[in-house]
């Protein structure tokens, strides 16, 4: 049995259910109480669980993540919210040097079971507020990085992340919050971290995507299908640990791959994917791994410029078409 809810509601349910299940689960972050959460995900939770379990914090991103880390060492299961992923830069030392490393560097004496919920996205927010850094997070050993595209995965992965003993960077997408989708009913819907999903089958090109770009990829696949090009679409869902086998298996029969993301082309997660795929699939590739990504420029405010830069379904179809124009190798 499923029920149709929004991505926002799915996340809200995940938080609420896990807080009901486990008294050690607490939320902390900026404006998550009275303001209602800047994207309204936590709305009402402070009324239900009280201000001890939904902790309003001052504006201090490093301090928020550090507090979560310390709380987890004290036996709790904190879910820290960083209002947007742009502000995560201020907490990067805490994430990279503390959260990601404690378990390893202290020889397994304790782990850091925190979730850092944050959000990427656009909307004429200009240069400093329109970035996304999943490629950076995904390069850090010790972190897990999750970026769900659908309400079902948002709910199932957030619940899994909260129960996971390792630090999980959970990146939502502002343009997905209102999207609706079927979610399994009940409070035991869990989606494993580290497993990609083939969400559309096809034999001509593999499109690897996650978060909002999954929707763009699916739209592109639909359009291309009408032209007779069948795309296989892989939703990564988890960026670290990367389910590279699922990608490799797909590319093994499509011989072509387009990897999609919203971070910068140079050094973004697409580069990580392209490097990995060309390494493991060299013999079967008929064309270079193509990347759909943000051009290497800060995002300007003006609507027309922003629209030119944000990757869309159109960018994906273009990339697929240009790949197909490259002759097979054999």
């Amino acid at each position, binding site marked *: 049995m499923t029920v149709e809810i929004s991505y926002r509601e799915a996340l809200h349910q995940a938080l609420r259910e896990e807080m009901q299940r486990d008294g050690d689960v607490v939320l902390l972050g*900026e*404006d998550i*109480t*009275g*303001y*209602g959460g*800047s994207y309204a995900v936590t709305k009402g939770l402070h009324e239900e669980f009280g201000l001890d379990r939904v902790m*309003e*914090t*001052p*504006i*201090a*991103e*490093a*301090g928020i993540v550090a507090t979560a880390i310390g709380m987890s060492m004290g036996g709790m299961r904190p879910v820290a919210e960083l209002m947007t992923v*742009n*502000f995560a830069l*201020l907490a990067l030392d805490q994430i990279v040097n503390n959260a990601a490393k404690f378990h390893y560097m202290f020889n397994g004496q304790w782990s850091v079971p925190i979730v850092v919920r944050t959000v990427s996205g656009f*909307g*004429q*927010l*200009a*240069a*400093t*507020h329109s970035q996304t850094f999943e490629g950076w997070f995904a390069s850090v050993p010790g972190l897990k990085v999750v970026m769900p595209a659908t309400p079902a995965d948002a709910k199932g992965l957030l619940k899994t992340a909260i129960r996971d003993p390792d630090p999980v960077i959970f990146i939502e997408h502002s343009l997905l919050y209102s999207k609706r989708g079927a979610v399994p009913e009940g409070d035991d819907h869990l989606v494993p971290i580290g497993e990609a999903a083939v969400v559309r089958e096809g034999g001509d090109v593999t499109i690897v995507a996650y978060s909002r770009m999954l929707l763009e990829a699916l739209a592109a696949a639909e359009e291309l299908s009408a032209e007779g090009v069948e795309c296989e679409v892989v939703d990564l869902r988890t960026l670290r640990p990367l389910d590279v086998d699922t990608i490799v298996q797909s590319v093994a029969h499509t011989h072509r791959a387009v990897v999609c993301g919203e971070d910068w*082309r*140079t050094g973004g997660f697409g580069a990580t994917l392209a490097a990995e795929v060309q390494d493991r699939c060299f013999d079967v590739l008929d064309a270079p791994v193509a990347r759909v990504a943000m*051009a*290497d*420029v*800060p995002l*300007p*405010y*003006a*609507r*027309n*410029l922003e629209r*030119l*830069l944000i990757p869309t379904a159109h*960018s994906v179809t*273009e990339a697929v078409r240009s790949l197909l124009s490259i002759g097979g190798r054999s």
Partner: protein
Amino acid sequence: MAKATSRPSTSRGRAQRTGEKAAASPRRRDRAALRGLDDETLLLMYRQMLLIRRFEEHAAEGYAQAKIGGFLHLYIGEEAVAVGALHGLRNDDHLITHYRDHGYALVRGCDPGQVMAELYGRATGVVGGRGGSMHLADASKHFWGGHAIVGGHIPVAVGLGVAQQRKDTGLVVLDVFGDGATAIGMFHEAMNMAMIWRAPVVFLCENNLYGMGAQLAEQSPVKQLVDRARGYNMPAAQCDGMDPVDTYRVVREAGEHARRGEGPFFVEALTYRFRGHSMADPEMYRTRDEVREWRAKDPIPAFAARLTEHGIADDKRLKQIDGEVEEQVVAAVRFADESPPPDPATIFDHLYAAPLGPAAPERSEIRP
């Protein structure tokens, strides 16, 4: 206002003390409070507050019409702070602010049309449509922006201040931020470094009682933000941020302190934003009563009343100013609306100041 006090005195405190000892009528006292400024300046202050108010009312409309996108943080209710503070300093003193920057841009002399065009994301905007509401700037006027990462610009001002020192420019830096920003690490690093280097920086904290929805009272261990300055041994004072003249006085003294080479100064302006944090704010975190109470202190009618009471202007003159300002803003909106969007061909311009030479990978990646 005490210098280098361990217990910072407040301008309000001083006003009270004056009140105690003197037998002067409230009206006499207030006239005295205006006396440092000539009528023209007082009228200019009034005009500027009004310009900010009308400008933002029209901006809110533009936002409702989706002509303005992204975040729009209105300054309505806080106009007296920018107006008073900038009158307390030289026109070429350096200015750097957080994202709630329309007031500062307008008072510093940016053309309202170009500011509105920036909000509209047009090529004629002060930064060519690249920055929007949060990132107004005009380096030629020593206005270094509009910054959207809370706290991120605060220590930049220290560097600007050090440069004034080294180059002996005689200028100081006005570093504007909100109450919420005082919790972040960069605020601390900036306050500390400014004191160590005696940088000529006026830290102006606009205490409007809220971060977004976070109440200062619950998010700060000190009741008065001037107390933050004590941990740095930095002199500090409060001013009435609903009164441009009180703000002017305190910031002027702070600026002169810095200009004399005595180091930084912290000013807390007590104010209130009448609108939500941004246009997206559901405003569930404060009561209508509280908002009503503060709206009763609206700096514009209050100042208008003082101007007429003291015979600096009559109602007719004020109405005239009102009309002129409205006209100016309507023209600004028209200018913005008629301006073209930025040319897509410029999209990679100014990524670097130096030509990149043959490598220039950025340019080759345009795939619009």
